[in-house]
């Protein structure tokens, strides 16, 4: 018993640890890329490098670099101006969050109520895992504890007779009209 309790706690801790390491590791790809240097002319590629990490505040699920709305074109112009002024990607991102709210992030900000978005899936997974573990452990106990149910067997006696009659009649009717 103690062993299985320890196992459960270990699973929960592991799932949480994994989740936090993963979330803490931050985005994998583009955000780690070096910010475009303001030196020289700002190209479309420099702008889109920043825009790739932002999301259209008016649409849902459309990345800023791929969005064709007028509002998004204006946002890209602002990025170009800010890059030319020497601002880095992080501060441009902060500026847009301030202007448009956390919608431009494409993910819930990791603060306050929105933490729930990140945590709950892993909590659910951990609880599900514990439940499954317990069920399996219970099922692995000696077989005599499991009562041999046979729910599929037809009911006995008179009712059985009635059911047979019904099946036969239905078959006949279906043969005629079905």
């Amino acid at each position, binding site marked *: 018993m103690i062993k299985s309790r320890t196992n459960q706690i270990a699973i929960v801790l592991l799932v949480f640890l994994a989740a936090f390491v993963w979330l803490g590791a931050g985005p*994998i790809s583009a955000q780690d890329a070096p910010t475009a240097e303001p030196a020289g002319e700002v190209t479309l590629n420099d702008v889109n490098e920043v825009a790739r990490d932002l999301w259209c*505040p008016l649409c*849902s699920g459309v*990345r800023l670099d791929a969005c064709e709305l007028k509002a998004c074109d204006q946002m890209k112009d602002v990025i170009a101006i800010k890059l030319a002024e020497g601002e880095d990607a992080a501060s441009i991102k902060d500026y847009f969050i301030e202007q448009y709210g956390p*919608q431009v992030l494409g993910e819930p900000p990791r603060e306050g109520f929105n933490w729930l*978005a990140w945590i709950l899936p*892993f909590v659910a997974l951990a609880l*599900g895992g514990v439940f499954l573990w317990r069920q399996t452990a219970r099922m692995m106990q000696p077989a005599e504890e499991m009562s041999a149910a046979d729910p599929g067997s037809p009911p006995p006696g008179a009712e059985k007779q009635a*059911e047979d009659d019904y099946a036969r009649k239905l078959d006949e009717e279906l043969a005629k009209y079905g």
Partner: protein
Amino acid sequence: MIFHIGYLILVTATVLAAFGMIAGFVGGRQRNVKLTLSSYHAVYAMAGLVALAAAILWYALLTDRFEVAYVWNHSERALPVFYKFSALWGGQAGSLLFWLLILSGFSVAAAFFNRRRHWAIMPYVNAVMLGTSLFFAVLLVFAANPFELASFVPQDGMGLNPLLQNYWMVLHPVMLYIGYVGLAVPFAFAVGALLSKRLDNQWVRTVRRWTLIPWMFLSAGILMGSQWAYMELGWGGYWAWDPVENASFLPWLTATAFLHSIVVQEQRGILKVWNAALIWMTYFLVILGTFTTRSGVLESVHSFARSDVGPFFLVFMVIILFGFLWLLFKRLPLLRDEQAIESYTSREAAFMANNWLFAGIAFATLWGTFFPMFSEILTGDRISVAAPFFNKVNGPLFLLLILLMGAAPLLGWRRTSRQAFRKQFTWPLLVGAVTGVAIWLLYDAGYPAIGLAACAFAAATIVQEYVRGVQARRITSGESVPAAMGNLWRRNGRRYGGYLVHLGIVLIAAAVIGNEFFQQNTNVTLANGESVTLGRYEIAYTGLEPNRKVNHVEYGARLMIFDQESGKTLGSILPRRNIYDKTPEQPTSEVGLRMTLIEDTYVVLNGWETGGSTATFTMYINPLTAWMWIGGLVLVLGTLIASWPHPGRRRSEAADSVAYAVGSAGD
């Protein structure tokens, strides 16, 4: 006149569905032959009426009857006939009618093919199918009448949404609907089994194929949707975790879990409650998905259709939720497991882990999809939950799933011995490890190395299983390799078809990893004759080619692709912008694509100046993307093999059902 008749047909269908549903429930409960028979006839008649209503709407669309508001809003004279035909599912009311049409088709098929079997369950199956039909018929009659007439007769229609004027967009909804709607059949069987107390494994055995075929259509539909997004939306990707995409993906996840967990019930007589609950969740998610796309409750690029169908859906969903839960609780004492699990290293334990992960991914996806709504209600802040969230939360779960997909088929039922472990796992693990290390060394990239190593491991287990199967047949019967392979599929299609489905998923996963981690892109403005280098290619712009079509003008920018090193011409592509006469402010994009097995060259035409003297492009190199579509084909092929009735099995199924139908009449 004819459109009034159309509406009247829908009203009649509503009444008929209500009658048939009651007849099925009461007939099944009272074992009343006449009422049961009526439920069958109601199913057939309902299908006839709905087909007639659909035919009338098609007639209106094909003959440009713009006095019908639906035709006016979703078609136009110049629309090609093909798209006029598909406009039936291009808008709200029509697509609901189309839903009902497919549902009626499935109801007829389920009733007809099972009319001599499952006599206790079938009246309830008819009742549940007709109950679902009733709901959609009520929507059509009260909230979204496709035959509503305009107050005047317009000269021309407003045109079909330009985004929908695409080959894939015609096929994708059909596939998706067949998949979506078909999943009502296994749910109806689950309700039937619970109501009739026929809770042995018979219903599970029957619904396997009724789940597998819709599942295949749903998979194909989702992939075609991705293909459409890839070709039409022009952002270099194929899946945005948009709420509408998630709506189709959620029932896919639970249906996949169900397809796996019913194997455990068949083999070992366990997970009975879970199986009933899973198919209930799947059905609920189908209705929820239809609700989210039809009611505009969650904003998304797809929600072109909004109307007042929302409250009807809410009521129906509450009925499904609580009705089924009540029924399940009432039947709990009859749903005891017949056997026990013996070891954590058994196949049944692996199946349970599979279900755990699928349920986890489904929950995370559902939660993420609806979270913006909760957040806005509770905090007042609007946030967006898009790809960054889903990739981070679901990414690691998918990785575990692929590892499990590789490991599970190698485990034995009940338990796996240490010796068997060594025999089964040595080669696949080695292949996975070598792949991972190679990718790490070549590209210095950790996450893709882990992901592709998992894919290689899973693929290696499948290859190993095939090699062993073929070898065994060659030893026993001396067959050639192709003959042995054919026989594996013919005699044990469930297993070897299933492996092919897994292989399809592995290929799709590899494509996703390639795209996610190794995509390259650039934005350029090129003058006529100028070129740019991207990846291994040099891409040159050679001019704009306008082309007048029936209802739009296509502007294509010709690009030549050269091998950067050798200078050899590899081909030419034509990314286009289509400007539709009816909606010039909403130009659509057709990407220029050169597809190879290694990588796609994918170019979007963003705009041009002075007749095409310069043009602006977004260019992408998308590695491994072709494998996504190849994986999709492999998946469909595998599903067909897995669901194909095997002559021997068919005989034994027929014998089973006869024995079941007559009960133990002899004793």
